[in-house]
């Protein structure tokens, strides 16, 4: 294991990622009936809305122990960090693909397996956390994805329990806008992370 990976506490991160997979793959259809203030009386908020927060929180916590002199590194530490962050949704996509082929998370057949939502949401939350870390610092980084998940859970459902257009994490698994928005967030977050080892303006 490289020194860089030691500073990122990869075993802990991997354990949290695997825990997320173990949570979502067998229980892809599980949902929580939650009161709604967004137009629906109550909505069955899927587990897939909250579960991806676990590896995202782990990512931020595990990357938080990096020493200060990384700010003057010659190595592309930022690119490695970005690759690590991108690996979370990428590895989850592989696991979900295998799980779907194995018959897990079949869904109702209308819009693909709900398991794919976890990949999309993990990407969106990872992007949000990376952007928040760049903007507000490491300690507050996880607040943005957490508040996003809670906001979607409380306000994200309209009449007939359909997700509002902006509530990407609650959208149907095949919703193109939700995928595009999540991919954009992830891309922006990764871009900020890649340039993390450049001289900071503050």
């Amino acid at each position, binding site marked *: 294991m*490289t*020194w*860089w990976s*030691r*500073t990122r*506490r990869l075993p802990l991160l991997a354990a949290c990622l695997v825990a997320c997979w173990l949570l979502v793959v067998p229980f892809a259809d599980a949902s929580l009936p939650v009161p709604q203030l967004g137009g629906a009386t109550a909505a069955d908020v899927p587990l897939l809305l909250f579960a991806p927060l676990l590896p995202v929180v782990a990512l931020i916590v595990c990357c938080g*122990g*990096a*020493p*200060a*002199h*990384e*700010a*003057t*590194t*010659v*190595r592309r*530490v930022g690119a490695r960090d970005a690759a690590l962050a991108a690996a979370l949704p990428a590895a989850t996509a592989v696991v979900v693909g295998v799980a779907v082929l194995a018959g897990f998370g079949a869904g109702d057949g209308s819009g693909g397996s709900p398991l794919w939502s976890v990949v999309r949401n993990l990407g969106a939350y990872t992007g949000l956390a990376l952007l928040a870390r760049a903007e507000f610092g490491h300690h507050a980084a996880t607040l943005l994805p957490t508040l996003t998940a809670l906001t979607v859970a409380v306000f994200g459902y309209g009449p007939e329990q359909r997700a509002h257009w902006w509530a990407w994490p609650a959208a149907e698994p095949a919703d193109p806008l939700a995928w595009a928005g999540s991919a954009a967030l992830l891309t922006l977050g990764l871009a900020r992370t890649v340039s993390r080892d*450049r*001289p*900071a*303006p*503050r």
Partner: protein
Amino acid sequence: MSVEFESCTHRYRRGPLVLDRLSFAFPAGRTVLLGPNGAGKSTVLALAASALRPSAGSVRFGALDPAVRSQLRSYRRDVGWLPQQVTAVPGMTCREQVAYAGWLKGMARGEAWTGAVPALDRVGLAKKADQQASSLSGGQLRRVGVAQTLVHAARLVLMDEPTAGLDPAQRTAFRRTVERLSEVADVIVSTHQTEDLWEVYDHVVVLAGGTVRFLGTVDAFRALAPPGAAAGREAEAAYAAVLGDGEE
């Protein structure tokens, strides 16, 4: 050749102006950076280390400008930096932590691993090389930080309060380290400890309110001390004279 600031302005986000169009060049050799708390010493060193980017103006080390993308790697390879806060990476030994710093500065993995031992030896921590860095005392951790700046062949070494928390014996050892280091690199040390200025440094820079109040040789600085200054207290007296009343 040393680091040069040109019309350098810096402001932390939502904070006050720390440096206002600062233009000066650190002299070559061993330089001590003095100044009251909040004077901008750590900001100057972080800018010189390319950890920060100035809000306006530029920083150069010889021909290298860290704002130029193609020159950043060379700049950073040439400049070593000991930040004010040295943190122990959980799960890493002292040797690994120092070797990691060398690797970050572009050394090959094996080279960094080998070079970590003499670097630790120079700060008196060779015997603790395989001990967890998180188990060290504050002063020992500071010495690991110094070793991190020594592990690679930097041409300019910046140290932000390296002697804070060191015992007298270690401060003496640190003086020897700086003397040896200055044979191969320029050294800039920010500190509040003035009792050993004459023995260690060639030049003094006094920073206050984001501007340079004094830049000159140690002898010129000593000459600023009032004639009646107590023996051994000349540096303090000179420092007070530079700052004037109320600055300290």
